[in-house]
C-alpha cells in the first residue's frame, strides 16, 4: 500500500478517503411520497453527477412534496491549481495598531457610514461590524478611536445615504445586504453605485458591501471596492479601510 496521491488539480470532495467524492445533498421534489418519487430523487442525484446515490431520507413534508437527503459519490473534479479567489486585502493588525496607524497616516478620524438599504430591514450584519461589542469577540468600529463610525441602521433610502455621505464628507460607506429574495439586494447595491457616480462622489469614497450572500468577487462586479461574506470580523473591515485609504492617498500606481 502506498500513500494516496494527492493531486489538487483533480480535486473531489473528501468523505473518509482521498478523492472518494462523498457528498450529502438535500432537496425537495414536488411529488407525493412513493417509490416513484424515490427513484426520481436518485435519477436527479445521478444527473448532478452523484454515483451510487443512497437516499437516506424520503420524508413527505406536504401531500405533494417529498424531502430527500441523499449521500453518494460525486464524479466531478475541479482543478484547484487553476483557480484564484480574490479576497479584500487586509493587513493583520489589531485594533490599537489600526487606530495608531490612522492617527499617524491621516492625522484625523476616518468617517465611516454604515446601513442596510431601502427595503432591507435587517440590522444584524451592520450591527455586528459597527456596535462597540462587535462580533465573535472582535470589537466593532464604534469602539475604534480612528473611526468616526455612524451606523444609520436599516431601510435607509439610497438617496438619503448619498446625501448623508456628502454632508458628512464620508471616507467610506459600508452597506449590509441581507434580504435576498428575488435578488433585490443586488439591485439596491447597484442603485447606490449609480447614484454616487451621478453625483460624482464615487471616487471620493471607499465603498464596501457585506452580507450572507456576498463575496469579494460579486462586490467588485457590482462596482464596490470590496465585499465581505458571512463571518467577517469588524477588525478585518477596519484593516481593509486603513489599507485602501493608504493606497488611494498614494495615488494611482501599479496595483
Amino acid at each position, binding site marked *: 500500500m502506498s500513500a494516496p496521491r494527492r493531486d489538487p488539480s483533480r480535486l473531489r470532495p473528501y468523505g473518509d478517503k482521498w478523492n472518494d467524492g462523498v457528498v450529502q445533498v*438535500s432537496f425537495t421534489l414536488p411529488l407525493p411520497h412513493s417509490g416513484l418519487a424515490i427513484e426520481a430523487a436518485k435519477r436527479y442525484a445521478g444527473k448532478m453527477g452523484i454515483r451510487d446515490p443512497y437516499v437516506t431520507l424520503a420524508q413527505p*413534508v406536504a401531500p405533494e412534496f417529498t424531502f430527500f437527503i441523499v449521500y453518494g459519490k460525486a464524479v466531478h473534479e475541479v482543478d484547484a491549481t487553476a483557480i484564484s479567489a480574490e479576497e479584500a486585502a487586509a493587513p493583520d493588525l489589531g485594533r490599537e495598531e489600526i487606530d495608531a496607524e490612522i492617527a499617524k497616516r491621516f492625522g484625523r478620524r476616518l468617517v465611516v457610514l454604515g446601513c442596510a438599504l431601502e427595503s*432591507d*430591514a435587517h440590522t444584524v450584519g451592520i450591527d455586528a461590524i459597527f*456596535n462597540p461589542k462587535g462580533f465573535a469577540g472582535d470589537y466593532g468600529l464604534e469602539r475604534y478611536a480612528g473611526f468616526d463610525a455612524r451606523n444609520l441602521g436599516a431601510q435607509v433610502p439610497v438617496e438619503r445615504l448619498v446625501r448623508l455621505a456628502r454632508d458628512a464628507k464620508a471616507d467610506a460607506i459600508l452597506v449590509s445586504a441581507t434580504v*435576498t*429574495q*428575488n435578488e433585490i439586494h443586488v439591485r439596491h447595491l447597484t442603485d447606490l453605485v449609480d447614484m454616487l457616480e451621478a453625483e460624482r462622489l464615487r471616487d471620493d469614497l471607499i465603498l464596501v458591501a457585506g452580507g450572507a450572500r456576498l463575496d469579494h468577487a460579486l462586490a467588485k462586479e457590482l462596482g464596490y471596492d470590496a465585499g465581505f461574506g458571512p463571518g467577517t470580523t469588524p477588525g478585518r473591515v477596519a484593516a481593509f479601510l486603513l489599507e485602501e485609504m493608504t493606497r488611494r492617498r498614494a495615488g494611482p500606481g501599479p496595483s
Partner: protein
Amino acid sequence: MPPKLGLSAERIENCRRLAGKVADGVRRETEPFTTVSTERAVLRLLGVDGVDEQDVPIPNRVVESLRATGKLARGAAVWLGSALAAGDSGPTEAARRLSDPSQAKGISEHPRWREALAPLVASTLGRIRGNAAERRRRLAAHPPDEEPLLYAIVATGNIYEDIIQAEAAARAGAQCIAVIRSTAQSLLDHVPHGATTSGFGGTFATQENFRLMRAALDRIEPEIGRSVRLVNYCSGLCMPEIAAMGAFERLDMMLNDALYGIIFRDINPFRTLIDQNFSRRINAAAGIVINTGEDNYLTTADAVEQAPAVLASQFINERLALDAGLERWQIGLGHAFEIDPELEDGLLLEIAQAEAAREIFTESPLKYMPPTKHMTGNVLRGYQQNALFVLTSVATGQSIHLLGMLTEALHTPLLSDRWLAIDQAKTIRTNARHLSEEIAFAPHGRIVRRAHEVLEGAEALLERIAGQGLFDALASGVFADTRRPRESGRGREGVVERHPEYSNPFREAWDREPAGAAS
C-alpha cells in the same frame, strides 16, 4: 404551575405600579391628538374602501382632503356622517365627495350626522363581534390546542404561493401561520389594496390577502381537525387600519407594538403611540391576541445585558394594552432566546428569563422568539440551537412558540426548512411533555439568582422611565441602545390636534361598553 423562582410579589407589584405611571404619562400626552392613520381606520370601519385610478386608497384620499380643508381635527366620522345625513347614498358616495377638497369644503356639519352613521357603526360592531364569536365556535369545536402553539411564518411575497406553504405547514402541525409582510410596508403611510403577488422578503398585508389566507386555512380545518390561527403585522405607520382589516377578516393574532416601530423602524414615537392605542382597541373588540416585540431588543443589543429592559418593556406593554381594553389572555408579551450559545451557562440564563416571564405574567400568552442573532449559516448548529430553544420553551410553559429556521439569515424559509422546524418542535414537545412539572430550581442557584437580578434591574429601569416619562426615556436610548427623540422619526406630520368636539364613534362605543364581550 406553582412559582419556582421565589420572586418577590411586592417587587412585581411595584413594577406594575411604575408601569401604570408610565402609561398614565403616555395617555396624558397623547390624548389630545389623533392621527391620519387613526382617521383612515375609522373610515375603513365605516365601510370606506377601495383605491382611486392611481392606486391611492380612498381612505387616504378622504383624510388628505379633510386635512387640506381644515376639517380633520373634528374626526373623519363627523364629515362622513354629515355627507350621509345630507343625502349621500352610502359610504362610497360620501367618500367620493369628501375626497375632493373643493366638494369637502362645502360640506358643513349636519345636526343629524350621528344618526346617519349609527347603522354603519352598529353593523361594523356586529360584524366584529360575529367574527369573534365565529373564532370561539371554531376553536371550541376541536380538542384544546397543545402548547406551546407552534407558530410558522410564510414569506414568499406571493399570496398564492404563501397559501401552498401555509397549508403544508398547517398539515405538518403548525398551529399559527404568520404571513410576513413585505419589509418596506411598515414605512408606507397607506395600506396596499387587493391580492398581491410580489413583495420583498414577505407579502403585502392587504385586506384581500387576509381574506384569501383565512379562507385557505378555514378550508383545511375539517381535514386536519384543528382551527389554525392566522397572524399578521399590525405595526408600522398603519397600525389601526391593519387592525380594522384584521377584525373584518377574522385574523387571530396581530403583532402590535409601537415600541418596535419606534426603535427599529424609526417611526415617530408620538404618532405611533397614538396609533397603537386605537389599533389595540380594535384588536380588543375583535378578540385578537396581540404579540409584542420585546424580542427585537435582543437582536441589536446584548441579550444578557438587555434582559431587564425586556422585562421592563413587558410591564409597560402590558399596562398600555390593558388601558386599551385588551384582557390579559389577549396580551402575548414577547421575548426571545438570543443569548450567545458559546456563553458558559447561557442556557441557564435563558431558562431564568423565560421562567420569570411565565411566573410574572401568569395569565398572558407569552410569545417566545427563536435565535436569530447567533445563527451563523452552520445549519446543523442552528438546528441544535433551535432544539435548546424548544426545550426551554416547553420546560418553562411558554404559550406561542415561533419556530426557528435552521437556515435563519440565509434565505426565506424553504418548504423543507419549515417542516424540519415543526417536526423538531413536535418531537421535543411530546418527548419532554411534563418536564416543567418535575423541575424545581436550586433555591440559591444560578437560575434563581439570575431571575431575581433581572427583576431588580427591570424595577430600577422602570423607576427611571417613570421618572423621565416614556418619551424622554426613549430619547435617551433606554431600549436596545437606540435613541429616539419625541419629534424625530417617520410619520410625525400625520399627527393632528383634536378639536374639543372631536368624535370617533368606535372609541366612544367601546368606552361605553368595554370589549370584554369578545372573550
